[in-house]
């Protein structure tokens, strides 16, 4: 047994058993962050806070939600919304956070692309981040099933049908996923389980991996410059705080981080209290009906861009391109052949145009996905979808021609 002495304080008692001082240094006061960053570096903390909001509001919803096809709709729209004191608060926090979390994820992603934060040893940060995106998408989709309204049912129908693989007609797979010929009790039960247990556990594991991936390469900075963290942190600890290129995670960086989180929370609760409607589709306030399709079925806004890539083509080509769009971001660190890990605007015209075109094209795809697939919108959607694919196919070529800066 290790040697223990009589503790001189509670802190000392804990220190002997849990090494809390050491842990605090490793995790916070001697975890080094570059000084050369801006507010976009706070998105990670905003995501952590939003995840906690989802978890806490979810726990309260879980206590009244009933996962059966007969009662689910009323347990949400009557019990939680009308009977439970402040039930509306948990629901609106949960719904708004589920929507806003994707906005922040997209900002976080495009910040990473812009500053080249997926290169030079940061590949695992990017990959674990994209796995988190997949897990969050699955979490959002499974959660969307639970109120068992018309959009829940029909989104469930359409998305599970994707697994028939178009001309492969793998209906057995679709029926296996549903546990029935159509989405029904078995379907609701398993998606409830996925939403409240399996996927959240996976998300928490992936968040751990995402943070761990950050330890060795450290956070990127605004110029993409390489920083010798050993030298710079020594300078800081020796007293040259102004001359050092780095600062402590806590409390230096955290104080600014939480400032941005504060601004975000004001915006967030403004939405929760005054503008929650965008996260609550009117169609989903009709109970699920397997014999009536709503006139327009569209996913929540954060899935629209990929939905629009599925839509203009015949089923097989659509599925192939949709699958391509889903996975291609994961491979970004390997598709980008350029040695430069600096902001997109300084990497030469080709990549600069590529970045801004990709960002604006995804916004166009999102807009077109929301509009009915008719006339002009069909045409714009088709062009945008093709442009998206072409841009990714062109990326290895334009990045390998890029000059070293």
């Amino acid at each position, binding site marked *: 047994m290790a040697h223990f002495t009589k503790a001189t304080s509670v802190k000392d008692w804990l220190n002997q058993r849990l090494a809390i001082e050491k842990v605090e240094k490793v995790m916070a006061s001697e975890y080094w962050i570059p000084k050369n960053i801006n507010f976009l570096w706070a998105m990670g903390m905003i995501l952590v806070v939003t995840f906690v909001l989802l978890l806490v509001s979810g726990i309260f919803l879980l206590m009244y939600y009933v996962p059966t096809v007969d009662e689910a709709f009323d347990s949400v729209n009557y019990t939680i919304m009308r009977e439970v004191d402040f039930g509306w608060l948990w629901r609106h926090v949960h719904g708004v956070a589920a929507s806003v979390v994707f906005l922040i994820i997209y900002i976080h992603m495009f910040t990473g692309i812009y500053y080249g934060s997926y290169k030079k040893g940061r590949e695992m940060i990017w990959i674990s981040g994209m796995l988190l995106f997949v897990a969050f998408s699955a979490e959002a989709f499974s959660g969307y099933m639970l109120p068992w309204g018309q959009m829940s049912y029909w989104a469930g*129908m*359409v998305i599970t049908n994707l697994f028939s693989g178009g001309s492969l007609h793998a209906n057995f797979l679709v029926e*296996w996923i549903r*546990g029935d010929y159509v989405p029904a009790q078995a379907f609701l039960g398993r998606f409830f389980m996925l939403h409240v247990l399996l996927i959240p556990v996976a998300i928490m594991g992936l968040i751990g991996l995402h943070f761990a991936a950050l330890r060795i390469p450290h956070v990127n900075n605004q110029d993409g410059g390489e920083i010798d963290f050993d030298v710079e942190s020594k300078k800081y600890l020796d007293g040259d705080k102004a001359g050092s290129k780095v600062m402590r995670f806590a409390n230096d960086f955290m104080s600014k981080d939480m400032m941005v989180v504060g601004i975000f929370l004001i915006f967030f609760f403004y939405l929760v209290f005054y503008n929650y409607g965008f996260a609550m589709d009117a169609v989903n306030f009709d109970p699920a009906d397997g014999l009536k*399709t709503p006139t327009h079925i569209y996913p929540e806004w954060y899935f629209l861009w990929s939905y629009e890539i599925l839509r203009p083509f015949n089923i097989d080509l659509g599925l192939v391109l949709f699958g391509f769009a889903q996975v291609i971001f994961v491979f970004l660190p390997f598709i980008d052949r350029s040695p430069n890990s600096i902001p997109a605007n300084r990497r030469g015209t080709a990549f600069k145009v590529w970045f801004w075109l990709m960002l604006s094209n995804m916004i166009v795809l999102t807009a077109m996905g929301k509009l*009915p697939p008719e006339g002009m919108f*069909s045409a714009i959607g088709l062009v945008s979808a093709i442009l998206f694919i072409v841009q990714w196919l062109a990326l290895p070529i334009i990045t390998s021609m890029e000059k070293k800066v």
Partner: protein
Amino acid sequence: MENNNRRGFMGKAFGAVAAVGAVGSLVAMKKTWDPLPSVKAAGFTTLDMSIYAEGVMVTEKWRGKPIFVLKKSERLMAQEKGNAAAEARNIKIGNDNFMVAIGLCTHLGCIPAFRKDEGNFLCACHGGMFDASGLVLKVPPPRGFDIPPFKIEGNKLVLGEVGPEWQAMKDNGVTL
């Protein structure tokens, strides 16, 4: 060295036991997600075909899915004359011709709406269109409406049971 050999053997032995257990539990997990016997047993619907009026599209229900039933009018029959693909899809009961099909778009399973004036179906999800026989007028749907397995019994139609007429349709590639 000898000890390491023993450890290696123990490791392999454990690996073998664990592999058997893993395969077994995967089988159990897969089977747990299969449709329940009660779900499968409820998969038959009988329709009385004498009650339908000409040219009126009626939606029935089979295995939780909508079934489109359209008794074809003489005008419709005249229109599709010579169109072998459309004629092959007709279900003859007595002297009447019916379009009976699973009312789900073959693209991703939304229910297309019947437009009485145009005499065709439009899917709101992705803009697919079908004619009165259930054939595709406009993509993305990859094929016409699927025809559910049926068996003709007098003027009744049993959905979920395979009769010779349906088997012939399947063999000829009229439906999946």
